[in-house]
């Protein structure tokens, strides 16, 4: 039996009673509308209950493409974590599906037996994937055949990622935006991907044949096989997919099939409740169902003036009108429909499209530029002097101008070509000042220039503050530069630096130099002492512990008080944690020079402990991967080699080349110098990893120009020292710090530079950021020229740190804590990584 609760709010006698607003659908449109309602004082008008079929807080569905492609971690895409609902007093039924609306009782009923009465109801149920009637797609029980996937939800995405791991070949059905994104994503997982599209042209809703052909070439260049005019008739395989058959008899083997053949609005709830439903639930200009003034509808499940939208931009406009109306802020608010201009990155190709893709009337003007070889296509359609359509592929630099012209019907330049290219004449740069107020700056979160400006005027004077409040830039991030420009412009030069951006750790309101002074003055030697003394309210913060441990070790060396819980797991067990909870072991092989005896020992250890993979690393040493935690002490003791620190935010390796002794071009003894440097600075903790190299001549076989510090032997017995180089996630050529005459001088300057970096860089700031932030001239003045008179102190403190070194692997003999090497996943069969 279900009883209907009407949620009596805790009312103050003087306040008007709050109405109960129930929202069905916890997706992008529903939650965005709630946010708009809350900004209009909605919290004092409504008690809000939300039902969401998906067991999560609201996330940015657009970014699922990136999650699938592995570009973004799924935790990055949440817009409203569960905390948000709690702190706004919203009752969320996550993972609960509403099954019925009773308009006469004014109540909704959910699958778990919950029943809730409403005063106002909002339907925001979005769409689901459309599954075309293909033989073999469904199993007899009505579920999709294992190996067949839709692409709509986070769960879909997770399942696809899991399946991609074990599989070789995938078929994606549908060559629209979603299908292309799915194909790209799966291809990133190393699958062989076939994309099947029923129409002759990819993305035929947005592109004409010629543009579609250019996109196709771009997609094929990625290694995806495209089949157009391909009608899939059957999915083959009983309990696991083995392939698909096309209408022309072609057979394509595959072990997973993704269907991206369009979407269907979730309008059944409305239809059963007797609301007018055509392609979706029909609404009026206030976003109310046409036959019930207490029911609002928003998002992909709404049909307005005959249009059903499938992209986010229109939803933001709908949300504003709905919120204005339901809160009474502007009872005259009306939605007139949206002109859609989309900027997308499809399978790596930039695409902007708006309005018509081709001329429709005899006197429509068309201007077109096609350069297939470089993947560039631009076309515009003009009617009565106004822009009514544009398509840009490959080169989208004119997008901002075209979108404005399309939206507002701006007068167009007589020289039509100026609309496609910058001919030097009218300055195309639509800067912060010229941008119209209602221009949408952040397309992922629907933030306009006006709302950014309003946020600044209401007192937010930092870029990060404005981004946090408005959420601009928190989607794909492509608008961040523009957001910063607008904030600067709006603040009229009075942009404040975000204070917390300078804090060394989030829990303690101090920048690094202030914090170091406080540590020294107050003799704070352990992480818990630091929290007690310096954190507001003495609050501990898990996310700050690792950085504080590193800093305390830098400041106190041997005299630091070790608290094992304040270390990251890698630093508790001196090895790098792997995806299955095992660890990797990289012994020190200084300068990359080893011996037959060492190699034999490594081989014996690998045999004895059944090590699944032995690999030569990119750092010129040998990695033993997949070692069980409980085996670490034995492995270390059998290896009898010091730790290579491949797991820490610390000094790692010095790569060397053969140099003087063997190479016919060698000018300096790079191997000897590399080994000396590695031995001297081994294990040193630092703000971020330190990777060095020494190379015997400017041919640079040890890649010294792209290292945190690199030394290059040059003619005349001299050495050049480069700092701030990188060739990982960022590529940067190092800056020349100094040219010196002897290897000893290289060692001295290396130590002084590293110490200066250790004391002044932010947590996790690699030298490739640190050096350009301070400027090489300043660093050179201090480190080489001793302009600040601190060179001797830096050298002395570096020597202290060196003296404090002990090989952490000796701890294997005498564990630091009980159960230090006890496994943390007691029932799992390890290792899970493949044996080679």
């Amino acid at each position, binding site marked *: 039996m279900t009883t209907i609760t009407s949620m009596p709010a805790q009312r103050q006698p003087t306040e008007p009673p709050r109405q109960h607003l129930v929202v069905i659908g916890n997706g992008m449109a529903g939650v965005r509308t709630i946010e708009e309602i809350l900004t209009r004082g909605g919290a004092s008008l409504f008690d809000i209950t939300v039902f969401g079929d998906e067991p999560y807080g609201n996330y940015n569905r657009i970014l699922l493409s990136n999650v699938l492609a592995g570009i973004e971690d799924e935790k990055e895409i949440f817009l409203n974590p569960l905390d948000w609902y709690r702190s706004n007093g919203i009752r969320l039924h996550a993972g609960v599906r509403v099954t019925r609306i009773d308009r006469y009782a004014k109540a909704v009923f959910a699958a778990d037996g919950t029943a809730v009465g409403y005063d106002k109801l909002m339907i925001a149920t979005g769409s689901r994937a459309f599954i075309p009637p293909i033989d073999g797609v469904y199993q007899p029980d009505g579920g999709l055949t294992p190996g067949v996937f839709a692409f709509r939800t986070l769960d879909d995405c997770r399942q696809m990622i899991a399946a991609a791991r074990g599989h070789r070949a995938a078929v994606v059905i549908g060559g629209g935006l979603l299908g292309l994104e799915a194909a790209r994503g799966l291809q990133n997982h190393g699958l062989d991907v076939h994309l099947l599209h029923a129409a002759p042209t990819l993305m035929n809703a947005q592109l004409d044949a010629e543009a579609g052909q250019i996109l196709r070439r771009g997609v094929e260049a990625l290694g995806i096989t495209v089949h157009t005019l391909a009608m899939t008739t059957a999915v083959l395989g009983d309990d696991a997919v083995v392939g698909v058959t096309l209408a022309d008899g072609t057979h394509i083997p595959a072990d997973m099939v993704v269907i991206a053949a369009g979407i269907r609005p979730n309008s059944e709830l409305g239809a059963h409740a007797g609301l007018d439903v055509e392609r979706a639930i029909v609404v009026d200009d206030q976003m109310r169902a046409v036959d019930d003034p207490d029911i609002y509808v928003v998002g992909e499940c709404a049909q307005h003036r005959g249009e059903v939208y499938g992209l986010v931009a229109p939803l933001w406009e709908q949300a504003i009108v709905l919120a204005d109306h339901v809160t009474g802020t502007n009872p005259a608010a009306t939605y007139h429909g949206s002109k859609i201009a989309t900027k997308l990155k499809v399978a790596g190709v930039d695409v902007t499209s708006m309005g018509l893709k081709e001329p429709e009337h005899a006197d429509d003007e068309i201007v077109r530029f096609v350069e297939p070889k470089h993947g560039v296509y631009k076309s515009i359609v003009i009617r009565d002097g106004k822009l009514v359509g544009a398509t840009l592929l490959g080169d989208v630099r004119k997008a901002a101008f075209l979108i404005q012209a399309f939206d507002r019907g701006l007068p167009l330049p007589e020289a039509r070509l100026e609309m496609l290219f910058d001919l030097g004449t009218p300055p195309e740069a639509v800067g912060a000042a010229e941008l119209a107020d209602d221009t949408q700056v952040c397309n992922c979160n629907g933030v306009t220039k006006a709302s950014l400006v309003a946020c600044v005027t209401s007192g937010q004077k930092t870029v990060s503050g404005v981004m946090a409040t408005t959420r601009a830039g928190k989607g794909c991030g492509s608008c961040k530069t523009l957001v910063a420009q607008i904030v600067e412009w709006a603040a009229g030069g009075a942009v404040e630096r975000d204070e917390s951006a300078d804090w060394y750790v989030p829990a303690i309101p101090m920048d690094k130099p202030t914090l170091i002074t406080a540590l020294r003055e107050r003799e704070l030697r352990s992480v818990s002492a630091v929290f007690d003394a310096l954190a507001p309210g003495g609050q501990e913060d898990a996310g700050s512990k690792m950085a504080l441990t590193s800093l305390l070790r830098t400041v106190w060396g041997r005299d630091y008080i070790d608290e*094992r819980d304040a270390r990251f*797991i890698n630093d508790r067990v001196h090895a790098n944690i792997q995806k299955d909870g095992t660890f990797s072991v990289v012994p020190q092989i200084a300068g990359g020079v080893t011996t037959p005896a060492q190699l034999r020992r490594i081989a014996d250890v690998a045999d004895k402990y059944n090590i699944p993979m032995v690999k030569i690393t990119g750092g010129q040493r040998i990695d033993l991967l997949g070692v069980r935690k409980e085996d670490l002490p034995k492995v270390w003791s059998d290896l009898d080699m010091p730790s290579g620190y491949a797991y820490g935010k610390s000094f790692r390796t010095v790569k060397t080349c053969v140099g003087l002794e063997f190479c016919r071009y060698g000018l300096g003894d790079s191997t000897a110098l590399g080994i000396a440097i590695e031995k001297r600075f081994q294990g040193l903790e630092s703000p971020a990893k330190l990777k060095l190299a020494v190379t015997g001549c400017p041919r640079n076989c040890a890649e010294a120009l792209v290292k945190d510090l690199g030394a290059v032997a040059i003619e005349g017995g001299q050495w050049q020292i480069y700092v701030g180089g990188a060739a990982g996630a960022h590529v940067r050529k190092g800056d020349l710090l100094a040219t010196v005459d002897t290897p000893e001088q290289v060692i001295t300057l290396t130590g002084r530079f590293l110490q200066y970096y250790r004391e002044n860089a932010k947590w996790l700031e690699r030298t490739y950021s640190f050096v350009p932030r301070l400027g090489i001239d300043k660093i050179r003045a201090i480190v080489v020229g001793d302009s600040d008179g601190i060179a001797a102190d830096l050298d002395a403190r570096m020597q202290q740190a060196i003296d404090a070194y002990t090989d952490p692997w000796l701890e294997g003999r005498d564990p630091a804590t009980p159960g230090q090497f006890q496994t943390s*996943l*007691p029932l799992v069969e390890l290792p899970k990584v493949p044996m080679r």
Partner: protein
Amino acid sequence: MNPTTETTHTSPDGVFHRLGPLSEIPIGEARAYAAAGQQIAVFRLRSGRLQATDASCPHAGGPLADGQTDETIVICPLHSNTFDLATGTSPSGAPPLTCYPIRVSDDGIIEVAVGQY
């Protein structure tokens, strides 16, 4: 593979499984146990409070007992999802963890209630 030998006994509160001595867990850290066929992580917070949750992260199976904690949350060592130790919910948006009632017996043994109780 796991050192823990577990025994169970019934009390007015239900079936508690005896995991091992409290002294096995260093302050501020966690250790993993098996009880009633479940993998349980037991956290000994710096305040002395104990919390018990699933040992494996719902995101991708990370070993939570290897994570870092404060009084409210644990951070998974693999991809840094956070979980509220008292409720199991994830402020970073991962699926929730199950939390288990936990206590220390008079003889200093950690006991956790798993399954039917």
